[in-house]
Protein backbone atom coordinates (compact mmCIF):
# COMPACT_ATOMS: atom_id res chain seq x y z
CA UNK A 1 0.00 0.00 0.00
CA UNK A 2 2.84 2.35 0.81
CA UNK A 3 4.38 1.38 -2.52
CA UNK A 4 1.35 2.53 -4.54
CA UNK A 5 1.02 5.61 -2.34
CA UNK A 6 4.64 6.40 -3.03
CA UNK A 7 4.29 5.99 -6.79
CA UNK A 8 1.12 8.09 -6.83
CA UNK A 9 2.95 10.81 -4.96
CA UNK A 10 5.76 10.61 -7.54
CA UNK A 11 3.25 11.04 -10.32
CA UNK A 12 1.62 14.02 -8.65
CA UNK A 13 4.95 15.67 -7.97
CA UNK A 14 6.13 15.04 -11.53
CA UNK A 15 2.97 16.51 -13.02
CA UNK A 16 3.22 19.48 -10.71
CA UNK A 17 6.86 20.01 -11.73
CA UNK A 18 6.01 20.00 -15.44
CA UNK A 19 3.01 22.27 -14.90
CA UNK A 20 5.12 24.55 -12.72
CA UNK A 21 7.85 24.81 -15.35
CA UNK A 22 5.23 25.57 -17.99
CA UNK A 23 3.67 28.24 -15.74
CA UNK A 24 7.05 29.88 -15.11
CA UNK A 25 7.73 29.91 -18.85
CA UNK A 26 4.29 31.32 -19.58
CA UNK A 27 4.72 34.01 -16.91
CA UNK A 28 8.09 34.97 -18.37
CA UNK A 29 6.61 35.10 -21.86
CA UNK A 30 3.72 37.27 -20.75
CA UNK A 31 5.66 39.51 -18.38
CA UNK A 32 6.83 41.73 -21.23
CA UNK A 33 10.44 41.76 -20.04
CA UNK A 34 11.42 39.71 -23.04
CA UNK A 35 10.56 40.35 -26.66
CA UNK A 36 7.49 38.28 -27.58
CA UNK A 37 9.26 37.30 -30.80
CA UNK A 38 11.95 35.57 -28.75
CA UNK A 39 9.73 34.04 -26.09
CA UNK A 40 6.34 33.15 -27.58
CA UNK A 41 3.57 32.05 -25.22
CA UNK A 42 2.58 28.40 -25.05
CA UNK A 43 -0.78 28.89 -26.82
CA UNK A 44 1.05 30.61 -29.68
CA UNK A 45 3.42 27.66 -30.02
CA UNK A 46 0.47 25.28 -29.91
CA UNK A 47 -1.41 27.22 -32.59
CA UNK A 48 1.68 27.30 -34.84
CA UNK A 49 2.17 23.57 -34.41
CA UNK A 50 -1.46 22.85 -35.28
CA UNK A 51 -1.39 25.22 -38.24
CA UNK A 52 1.78 23.66 -39.63
CA UNK A 53 0.37 20.18 -39.18
CA UNK A 54 -2.91 21.22 -40.81
CA UNK A 55 -1.42 22.75 -43.94
CA UNK A 56 0.87 19.75 -44.33
CA UNK A 57 4.14 21.68 -44.31
CA UNK A 58 5.28 20.10 -41.07
CA UNK A 59 4.53 16.63 -42.41
CA UNK A 60 6.49 17.35 -45.56
CA UNK A 61 9.49 18.58 -43.58
CA UNK A 62 9.30 15.54 -41.35
CA UNK A 63 9.02 13.27 -44.40
CA UNK A 64 12.17 14.76 -45.94
CA UNK A 65 14.08 14.41 -42.71
CA UNK A 66 12.89 10.84 -42.22
CA UNK A 67 13.79 9.94 -45.79
CA UNK A 68 17.35 11.19 -45.27
CA UNK A 69 17.70 9.48 -41.91
CA UNK A 70 16.34 6.15 -43.10
CA UNK A 71 18.44 6.17 -46.25
CA UNK A 72 21.67 6.98 -44.40
CA UNK A 73 20.84 4.67 -41.51
CA UNK A 74 19.93 1.82 -43.87
CA UNK A 75 23.18 2.30 -45.74
CA UNK A 76 25.06 2.25 -42.43
CA UNK A 77 23.46 -1.08 -41.50
CA UNK A 78 24.18 -2.57 -44.91
CA UNK A 79 27.85 -1.59 -44.63
CA UNK A 80 28.47 -1.65 -40.89
CA UNK A 81 26.84 -4.96 -40.00
CA UNK A 82 28.69 -7.22 -42.47
CA UNK A 83 31.95 -5.36 -41.89
CA UNK A 84 31.60 -5.78 -38.14
CA UNK A 85 30.94 -9.51 -38.55
CA UNK A 86 33.85 -9.94 -40.94
CA UNK A 87 36.15 -8.05 -38.59
CA UNK A 88 35.20 -10.32 -35.73
CA UNK A 89 35.50 -13.54 -37.73
CA UNK A 90 38.66 -12.88 -39.74
CA UNK A 91 41.86 -11.62 -38.17
CA UNK A 92 43.09 -10.14 -41.46
CA UNK A 93 39.99 -8.02 -41.94
CA UNK A 94 40.27 -6.80 -38.37
CA UNK A 95 43.94 -5.96 -38.80
CA UNK A 96 43.11 -3.86 -41.80
CA UNK A 97 40.00 -2.03 -40.68
CA UNK A 98 40.50 -1.56 -36.95
CA UNK A 99 43.26 1.10 -37.23
CA UNK A 100 41.20 2.99 -39.82
CA UNK A 101 38.07 2.85 -37.72
CA UNK A 102 39.93 4.00 -34.60
CA UNK A 103 41.34 6.97 -36.51
CA UNK A 104 38.05 7.99 -38.12
CA UNK A 105 35.76 7.44 -35.15
CA UNK A 106 36.83 10.47 -33.12
CA UNK A 107 36.09 12.82 -36.02
CA UNK A 108 32.62 14.27 -35.37
CA UNK A 109 30.40 13.87 -38.41
CA UNK A 110 29.70 17.61 -38.53
CA UNK A 111 33.36 18.34 -39.21
CA UNK A 112 32.86 16.69 -42.59
CA UNK A 113 29.77 18.70 -43.53
CA UNK A 114 31.67 21.59 -45.19
CA UNK A 115 33.89 19.13 -47.06
CA UNK A 116 30.92 17.11 -48.29
CA UNK A 117 29.18 20.33 -49.29
CA UNK A 118 32.11 21.11 -51.56
CA UNK A 119 32.21 17.61 -52.98
CA UNK A 120 28.55 16.78 -53.29
CA UNK A 121 26.75 20.12 -53.17
CA UNK A 122 23.98 20.96 -50.77
CA UNK A 123 20.89 18.82 -50.43
CA UNK A 124 20.00 15.18 -50.05
CA UNK A 125 23.27 13.51 -50.99
CA UNK A 126 25.40 15.42 -48.48
CA UNK A 127 22.89 14.95 -45.68
CA UNK A 128 22.53 11.23 -46.35
CA UNK A 129 26.28 10.72 -46.43
CA UNK A 130 26.73 12.59 -43.15
CA UNK A 131 24.07 10.39 -41.56
CA UNK A 132 25.79 7.35 -43.02
CA UNK A 133 29.14 8.44 -41.60
CA UNK A 134 27.66 9.12 -38.17
CA UNK A 135 25.78 5.81 -37.99
CA UNK A 136 28.28 3.35 -39.49
CA UNK A 137 30.82 3.36 -36.68
CA UNK A 138 28.54 2.53 -33.75
CA UNK A 139 26.92 -0.15 -35.91
CA UNK A 140 30.23 -1.70 -36.91
CA UNK A 141 31.82 -1.42 -33.50
CA UNK A 142 28.94 -2.99 -31.62
CA UNK A 143 28.55 -5.82 -34.12
CA UNK A 144 32.25 -6.48 -33.87
CA UNK A 145 32.26 -6.70 -30.08
CA UNK A 146 29.00 -8.68 -30.16
CA UNK A 147 30.31 -11.41 -32.43
CA UNK A 148 33.58 -11.54 -30.51
CA UNK A 149 31.78 -11.94 -27.21
CA UNK A 150 29.72 -14.94 -28.29
CA UNK A 151 30.43 -17.58 -25.68
CA UNK A 152 33.09 -19.91 -27.16
CA UNK A 153 31.49 -22.76 -25.27
CA UNK A 154 28.38 -22.42 -27.44
CA UNK A 155 30.47 -22.49 -30.59
CA UNK A 156 32.26 -25.61 -29.51
CA UNK A 157 29.05 -27.26 -28.34
CA UNK A 158 27.35 -26.53 -31.66
CA UNK A 159 30.45 -27.72 -33.52
CA UNK A 160 30.53 -30.93 -31.50
CA UNK A 161 26.88 -31.54 -32.32
CA UNK A 162 27.76 -31.33 -35.97
CA UNK A 163 26.69 -27.84 -36.98
CA UNK A 164 28.31 -26.69 -40.21
CA UNK A 165 29.63 -23.17 -40.76
CA UNK A 166 26.35 -21.99 -42.20
CA UNK A 167 24.27 -23.29 -39.32
CA UNK A 168 26.78 -22.10 -36.76
CA UNK A 169 26.54 -18.60 -38.15
CA UNK A 170 22.77 -18.30 -38.31
CA UNK A 171 21.82 -20.35 -35.25
CA UNK A 172 24.58 -19.44 -32.81
CA UNK A 173 26.59 -16.40 -33.77
CA UNK A 174 23.81 -14.08 -34.93
CA UNK A 175 21.44 -14.76 -32.02
CA UNK A 176 24.38 -14.64 -29.62
CA UNK A 177 25.51 -11.27 -30.90
CA UNK A 178 22.00 -9.87 -31.22
CA UNK A 179 21.92 -7.82 -28.00
CA UNK A 180 25.02 -5.98 -29.12
CA UNK A 181 23.72 -5.59 -32.67
CA UNK A 182 20.48 -4.06 -31.42
CA UNK A 183 22.38 -1.75 -29.09
CA UNK A 184 24.46 -0.79 -32.10
CA UNK A 185 21.34 -0.01 -34.11
CA UNK A 186 19.97 2.10 -31.28
CA UNK A 187 23.16 4.08 -30.93
CA UNK A 188 23.44 4.40 -34.69
CA UNK A 189 19.92 5.74 -34.96
CA UNK A 190 20.49 8.21 -32.13
CA UNK A 191 23.62 9.44 -33.88
CA UNK A 192 21.89 9.67 -37.25
CA UNK A 193 19.04 11.61 -35.73
CA UNK A 194 21.48 14.16 -34.30
CA UNK A 195 23.49 14.19 -37.52
CA UNK A 196 20.51 14.78 -39.79
CA UNK A 197 19.33 17.80 -37.83
CA UNK A 198 22.80 19.34 -37.80
CA UNK A 199 23.53 18.55 -41.42
CA UNK A 200 20.22 20.05 -42.49
CA UNK A 201 21.06 23.21 -40.58
CA UNK A 202 24.52 23.66 -42.01
CA UNK A 203 24.04 22.26 -45.51
CA UNK A 204 20.66 23.88 -45.82
CA UNK A 205 18.46 22.71 -48.63
CA UNK A 206 14.78 23.61 -48.82
CA UNK A 207 13.11 21.01 -46.68
CA UNK A 208 13.72 19.18 -43.46
CA UNK A 209 13.08 19.78 -39.78
CA UNK A 210 16.61 21.00 -39.10
CA UNK A 211 16.34 23.45 -41.96
CA UNK A 212 13.00 24.79 -40.69
CA UNK A 213 14.49 25.55 -37.30
CA UNK A 214 17.48 27.28 -38.75
CA UNK A 215 15.46 29.15 -41.33
CA UNK A 216 12.97 30.32 -38.70
CA UNK A 217 15.84 31.95 -36.82
CA UNK A 218 16.39 34.38 -39.69
CA UNK A 219 12.82 35.63 -39.37
CA UNK A 220 12.69 35.46 -35.55
CA UNK A 221 9.90 32.90 -35.80
CA UNK A 222 10.61 31.40 -32.42
CA UNK A 223 7.19 29.74 -32.34
CA UNK A 224 8.00 27.76 -35.49
CA UNK A 225 11.36 26.82 -33.99
CA UNK A 226 9.83 25.52 -30.79
CA UNK A 227 7.06 23.71 -32.68
CA UNK A 228 9.63 21.92 -34.87
CA UNK A 229 11.70 21.16 -31.79
CA UNK A 230 8.69 19.40 -30.31
CA UNK A 231 8.18 17.36 -33.49
CA UNK A 232 11.87 16.39 -33.60
CA UNK A 233 11.75 15.28 -29.98
CA UNK A 234 8.56 13.28 -30.51
CA UNK A 235 9.83 11.45 -33.59
CA UNK A 236 13.11 10.59 -31.91
CA UNK A 237 11.31 9.39 -28.82
CA UNK A 238 8.82 7.32 -30.85
CA UNK A 239 11.61 5.58 -32.74
CA UNK A 240 13.52 4.77 -29.61
CA UNK A 241 10.50 3.57 -27.67
CA UNK A 242 8.34 1.78 -30.23
CA UNK A 243 10.51 0.62 -33.10
CA UNK A 244 13.63 -0.41 -31.21
CA UNK A 245 11.60 -1.57 -28.25
CA UNK A 246 9.55 -3.94 -30.40
CA UNK A 247 12.61 -5.01 -32.38
CA UNK A 248 14.19 -6.01 -29.10
CA UNK A 249 11.11 -7.94 -28.04
CA UNK A 250 10.98 -9.74 -31.38
CA UNK A 251 14.58 -10.88 -31.38
CA UNK A 252 16.62 -10.59 -28.21
CA UNK A 253 13.92 -11.35 -25.69
CA UNK A 254 12.36 -14.10 -27.79
CA UNK A 255 15.69 -15.82 -28.19
CA UNK A 256 16.21 -15.46 -24.45
CA UNK A 257 19.43 -13.54 -24.90
CA UNK A 258 18.85 -10.71 -22.48
CA UNK A 259 19.97 -12.40 -19.31
CA UNK A 260 23.05 -13.92 -20.86
CA UNK A 261 24.04 -10.56 -22.24
CA UNK A 262 23.80 -8.93 -18.88
CA UNK A 263 25.31 -11.74 -16.85
Amino acid at each position, binding site marked *: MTETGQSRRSLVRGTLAVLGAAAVYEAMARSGYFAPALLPTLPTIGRTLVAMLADGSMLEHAAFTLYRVMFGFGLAIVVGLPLGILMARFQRVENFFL*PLVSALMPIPSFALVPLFMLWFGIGNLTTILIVFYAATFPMMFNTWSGVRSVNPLWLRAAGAMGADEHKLFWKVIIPGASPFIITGMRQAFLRSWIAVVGAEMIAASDWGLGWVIFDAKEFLNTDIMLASLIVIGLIGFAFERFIFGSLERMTVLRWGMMRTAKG
Partner: protein
Amino acid sequence: MQDAVTTITADRGAVLAERWRLVARTLFPFIVVGAIWEVIAWAGVFPRRLFPPLEEVAASFVHLTMTGILPRHAIETILRLLTGFALAGVVGVTIGVLMGRSRRAEDILLPLVSIGAPIPGLAYAPLFLLWFGLGNVSSVLLVGFVSAFPIIFNSWTGVKAVKEIWVRSAQAMGADDRRLFRHVILPGALPYILTGLRLGLAQAWRILVAVEMLAAVPWGLGWLIFGARKFLNTDAMLAGIVVIAVIGLALEKLVFQKIENYTVVRWGMISS
Protein backbone atom coordinates in the same frame (compact mmCIF):
# COMPACT_ATOMS: atom_id res chain seq x y z
CA MET B 1 51.35 -13.34 -30.24
CA GLN B 2 51.38 -16.14 -27.70
CA ASP B 3 54.70 -17.40 -28.99
CA ALA B 4 56.26 -13.98 -28.75
CA VAL B 5 55.13 -13.65 -25.16
CA THR B 6 56.71 -16.92 -24.09
CA THR B 7 60.04 -16.14 -25.70
CA ILE B 8 60.38 -12.69 -24.09
CA THR B 9 63.06 -13.78 -21.70
CA ALA B 10 64.80 -15.97 -24.23
CA ASP B 11 65.10 -13.63 -27.16
CA ARG B 12 64.73 -9.86 -27.17
CA GLY B 13 65.17 -9.78 -30.91
CA ALA B 14 61.94 -11.65 -31.41
CA VAL B 15 60.09 -9.14 -29.24
CA LEU B 16 61.50 -6.29 -31.24
CA ALA B 17 60.50 -7.96 -34.47
CA GLU B 18 57.03 -8.53 -33.12
CA ARG B 19 56.73 -4.87 -32.20
CA TRP B 20 57.84 -3.81 -35.65
CA ARG B 21 55.32 -6.15 -37.20
CA LEU B 22 52.58 -4.53 -35.08
CA VAL B 23 53.63 -1.06 -36.20
CA ALA B 24 53.73 -2.17 -39.82
CA ARG B 25 50.33 -3.84 -39.48
CA THR B 26 48.82 -0.67 -38.02
CA LEU B 27 50.35 1.57 -40.66
CA PHE B 28 49.53 -0.66 -43.60
CA PRO B 29 45.82 0.29 -43.99
CA PHE B 30 46.69 3.99 -43.82
CA ILE B 31 49.28 3.56 -46.53
CA VAL B 32 46.74 1.77 -48.71
CA VAL B 33 44.09 4.46 -48.21
CA GLY B 34 46.68 7.20 -48.72
CA ALA B 35 47.83 5.61 -51.96
CA ILE B 36 44.26 5.39 -53.24
CA TRP B 37 43.75 9.04 -52.32
CA GLU B 38 46.92 10.03 -54.19
CA VAL B 39 45.91 8.09 -57.30
CA ILE B 40 42.46 9.75 -57.36
CA ALA B 41 43.97 13.18 -56.74
CA TRP B 42 46.59 12.85 -59.47
CA ALA B 43 44.29 11.18 -61.95
CA GLY B 44 42.31 14.40 -62.03
CA VAL B 45 38.90 12.80 -61.55
CA PHE B 46 37.93 15.77 -59.39
CA PRO B 47 39.14 19.35 -59.68
CA ARG B 48 42.48 19.77 -57.93
CA ARG B 49 41.14 22.46 -55.59
CA LEU B 50 38.43 20.15 -54.31
CA PHE B 51 40.55 17.02 -53.99
CA PRO B 52 44.12 18.04 -53.22
CA PRO B 53 46.89 15.42 -53.05
CA LEU B 54 48.15 14.59 -49.58
CA GLU B 55 51.41 16.52 -49.90
CA GLU B 56 49.43 19.71 -50.42
CA VAL B 57 47.38 18.99 -47.31
CA ALA B 58 50.59 18.35 -45.39
CA ALA B 59 52.17 21.55 -46.72
CA SER B 60 49.10 23.54 -45.73
CA PHE B 61 49.12 21.85 -42.32
CA VAL B 62 52.75 22.82 -41.75
CA HIS B 63 52.17 26.33 -43.04
CA LEU B 64 49.10 26.91 -40.85
CA THR B 65 50.90 25.49 -37.82
CA MET B 66 54.04 27.57 -38.34
CA THR B 67 52.07 30.79 -38.71
CA GLY B 68 50.25 29.95 -35.50
CA ILE B 69 46.79 29.98 -37.06
CA LEU B 70 46.00 26.33 -36.54
CA PRO B 71 47.21 26.21 -32.90
CA ARG B 72 45.14 29.27 -32.05
CA HIS B 73 42.00 27.76 -33.57
CA ALA B 74 42.69 24.53 -31.72
CA ILE B 75 43.27 26.24 -28.37
CA GLU B 76 40.08 28.27 -28.63
CA THR B 77 38.12 25.12 -29.48
CA ILE B 78 39.62 23.21 -26.56
CA LEU B 79 38.94 26.09 -24.15
CA ARG B 80 35.34 26.24 -25.30
CA LEU B 81 35.01 22.48 -24.94
CA LEU B 82 36.48 22.50 -21.44
CA THR B 83 34.41 25.45 -20.24
CA GLY B 84 31.18 23.96 -21.53
CA PHE B 85 32.07 20.54 -20.21
CA ALA B 86 33.07 21.89 -16.78
CA LEU B 87 29.72 23.63 -16.59
CA ALA B 88 27.95 20.43 -17.54
CA GLY B 89 30.03 18.39 -15.12
CA VAL B 90 29.31 20.57 -12.09
CA VAL B 91 25.62 21.06 -12.83
CA GLY B 92 25.06 17.51 -14.11
CA VAL B 93 26.71 15.67 -11.24
CA THR B 94 24.97 17.91 -8.70
CA ILE B 95 21.54 17.35 -10.21
CA GLY B 96 22.19 13.64 -10.75
CA VAL B 97 23.39 13.03 -7.19
CA LEU B 98 20.52 15.08 -5.80
CA MET B 99 18.08 13.00 -7.82
CA GLY B 100 19.70 9.80 -6.59
CA ARG B 101 19.64 10.81 -2.95
CA SER B 102 16.31 12.54 -2.54
CA ARG B 103 13.02 11.09 -3.60
CA ARG B 104 11.47 14.54 -3.85
CA ALA B 105 14.20 15.88 -6.14
CA GLU B 106 13.84 12.77 -8.30
CA ASP B 107 10.09 13.17 -8.66
CA ILE B 108 10.39 16.82 -9.59
CA LEU B 109 13.43 16.74 -11.86
CA LEU B 110 13.07 13.44 -13.70
CA PRO B 111 10.09 14.46 -15.89
CA LEU B 112 11.78 17.74 -16.80
CA VAL B 113 15.05 16.04 -17.70
CA SER B 114 13.26 13.29 -19.63
CA ILE B 115 11.44 15.84 -21.75
CA GLY B 116 14.62 17.66 -22.70
CA ALA B 117 16.81 14.62 -23.33
CA PRO B 118 15.40 13.04 -26.52
CA ILE B 119 15.76 16.23 -28.58
CA PRO B 120 19.09 16.24 -30.44
CA GLY B 121 21.26 18.92 -28.85
CA LEU B 122 21.99 20.75 -32.04
CA ALA B 123 18.29 21.42 -32.59
CA TYR B 124 18.48 23.83 -29.67
CA ALA B 125 21.27 25.76 -31.37
CA PRO B 126 19.17 28.37 -33.23
CA LEU B 127 17.12 28.94 -30.08
CA PHE B 128 20.26 29.57 -28.03
CA LEU B 129 21.60 31.85 -30.74
CA LEU B 130 18.43 33.91 -30.61
CA TRP B 131 18.36 34.06 -26.83
CA PHE B 132 22.05 34.58 -26.08
CA GLY B 133 23.35 36.05 -29.32
CA LEU B 134 26.05 34.83 -31.68
CA GLY B 135 29.44 33.89 -30.32
CA ASN B 136 31.03 32.38 -27.26
CA VAL B 137 28.25 32.58 -24.68
CA SER B 138 25.80 30.66 -26.83
CA SER B 139 28.25 28.01 -27.90
CA VAL B 140 29.57 27.34 -24.40
CA LEU B 141 26.08 27.27 -22.90
CA LEU B 142 24.80 24.97 -25.64
CA VAL B 143 27.71 22.56 -25.28
CA GLY B 144 27.20 22.55 -21.53
CA PHE B 145 23.45 22.07 -21.81
CA VAL B 146 23.72 19.16 -24.23
CA SER B 147 26.49 17.29 -22.45
CA ALA B 148 24.73 17.67 -19.09
CA PHE B 149 22.06 15.07 -19.95
CA PRO B 150 24.20 11.91 -20.02
CA ILE B 151 26.02 13.14 -16.91
CA ILE B 152 22.73 13.64 -15.04
CA PHE B 153 21.36 10.23 -16.04
CA ASN B 154 24.52 8.34 -15.18
CA SER B 155 25.14 10.05 -11.83
CA TRP B 156 21.52 9.40 -10.91
CA THR B 157 21.78 5.71 -11.83
CA GLY B 158 25.13 5.47 -10.07
CA VAL B 159 23.91 6.85 -6.76
CA LYS B 160 20.87 4.60 -6.90
CA ALA B 161 23.06 1.60 -7.67
CA VAL B 162 25.15 1.96 -4.52
CA LYS B 163 24.47 -1.18 -2.55
CA GLU B 164 22.00 -0.62 0.22
CA ILE B 165 24.03 -2.85 2.51
CA TRP B 166 27.10 -0.61 2.24
CA VAL B 167 25.05 2.42 3.21
CA ARG B 168 23.47 0.61 6.12
CA SER B 169 26.68 -0.87 7.43
CA ALA B 170 28.38 2.53 7.25
CA GLN B 171 25.47 4.02 9.16
CA ALA B 172 25.58 1.21 11.68
CA MET B 173 29.24 1.97 12.22
CA GLY B 174 28.27 5.54 13.00
CA ALA B 175 29.07 7.43 9.81
CA ASP B 176 27.37 10.81 9.63
CA ASP B 177 25.84 12.11 6.41
CA ARG B 178 28.97 13.83 5.21
CA ARG B 179 31.20 10.81 5.78
CA LEU B 180 28.59 8.53 4.28
CA PHE B 181 28.53 10.65 1.16
CA ARG B 182 32.28 11.07 0.85
CA HIS B 183 33.39 7.57 1.70
CA VAL B 184 30.55 5.35 0.55
CA ILE B 185 28.21 6.95 -1.94
CA LEU B 186 30.71 8.92 -3.97
CA PRO B 187 33.20 6.06 -4.48
CA GLY B 188 30.33 3.64 -5.09
CA ALA B 189 28.74 5.82 -7.72
CA LEU B 190 32.01 6.86 -9.29
CA PRO B 191 32.19 4.28 -12.10
CA TYR B 192 28.79 5.47 -13.31
CA ILE B 193 29.64 9.14 -12.86
CA LEU B 194 32.83 8.67 -14.83
CA THR B 195 30.93 6.89 -17.59
CA GLY B 196 28.53 9.81 -17.63
CA LEU B 197 31.35 12.33 -17.81
CA ARG B 198 32.96 10.36 -20.60
CA LEU B 199 29.72 10.23 -22.59
CA GLY B 200 29.14 13.90 -21.87
CA LEU B 201 32.57 14.87 -23.10
CA ALA B 202 32.12 12.77 -26.24
CA GLN B 203 28.76 14.43 -26.83
CA ALA B 204 30.19 17.90 -26.23
CA TRP B 205 33.02 17.19 -28.63
CA ARG B 206 30.68 15.89 -31.31
CA ILE B 207 28.45 18.94 -31.39
CA LEU B 208 31.00 21.64 -30.57
CA VAL B 209 32.35 21.63 -34.12
CA ALA B 210 28.88 22.15 -35.56
CA VAL B 211 28.06 24.80 -32.97
CA GLU B 212 31.16 26.73 -33.96
CA MET B 213 30.02 26.66 -37.56
CA LEU B 214 26.58 27.98 -36.70
CA ALA B 215 27.50 30.49 -33.97
CA ALA B 216 30.08 32.38 -36.03
CA VAL B 217 32.73 32.44 -33.32
CA PRO B 218 35.87 34.36 -34.34
CA TRP B 219 38.27 31.44 -33.76
CA GLY B 220 37.76 27.71 -33.58
CA LEU B 221 38.36 24.60 -35.64
CA GLY B 222 34.73 24.31 -36.70
CA TRP B 223 34.80 27.85 -37.96
CA LEU B 224 38.13 27.25 -39.70
CA ILE B 225 36.66 24.37 -41.66
CA PHE B 226 33.45 26.20 -42.42
CA GLY B 227 35.23 29.39 -43.44
CA ALA B 228 37.71 27.53 -45.64
CA ARG B 229 34.82 26.22 -47.71
CA LYS B 230 34.02 29.70 -49.00
CA PHE B 231 37.50 30.05 -50.48
CA LEU B 232 37.66 26.44 -51.70
CA ASN B 233 40.62 25.86 -49.41
CA THR B 234 40.09 22.12 -49.26
CA ASP B 235 43.66 21.60 -48.05
CA ALA B 236 43.10 23.87 -45.03
CA MET B 237 39.82 22.08 -44.37
CA LEU B 238 41.47 18.67 -44.38
CA ALA B 239 44.27 19.97 -42.15
CA GLY B 240 41.60 21.17 -39.71
CA ILE B 241 39.87 17.80 -39.81
CA VAL B 242 43.17 16.08 -39.02
CA VAL B 243 43.61 18.29 -35.95
CA ILE B 244 40.05 17.50 -34.89
CA ALA B 245 40.74 13.78 -35.19
CA VAL B 246 43.95 14.08 -33.17
CA ILE B 247 42.23 16.04 -30.39
CA GLY B 248 39.36 13.55 -30.32
CA LEU B 249 41.73 10.63 -30.07
CA ALA B 250 43.81 12.36 -27.39
CA LEU B 251 40.70 13.08 -25.31
CA GLU B 252 39.79 9.42 -25.29
CA LYS B 253 43.24 7.91 -24.78
CA LEU B 254 44.93 10.46 -22.54
CA VAL B 255 42.16 11.97 -20.47
CA PHE B 256 39.64 9.28 -19.77
CA GLN B 257 41.63 6.11 -19.63
CA LYS B 258 44.02 7.88 -17.22
CA ILE B 259 41.24 9.09 -14.94
CA GLU B 260 39.65 5.68 -14.93
CA ASN B 261 42.90 3.95 -14.03
CA TYR B 262 43.68 6.46 -11.34
CA THR B 263 40.40 6.47 -9.45
CA VAL B 264 38.14 3.58 -10.19
CA VAL B 265 40.69 0.86 -10.51
CA ARG B 266 42.59 2.13 -7.47
CA TRP B 267 39.50 1.97 -5.34
CA GLY B 268 38.79 -1.48 -6.69
CA MET B 269 35.34 -0.54 -7.94
CA ILE B 270 35.46 -2.04 -11.41
CA SER B 271 35.71 -5.68 -10.42
CA SER B 272 33.13 -5.53 -7.63
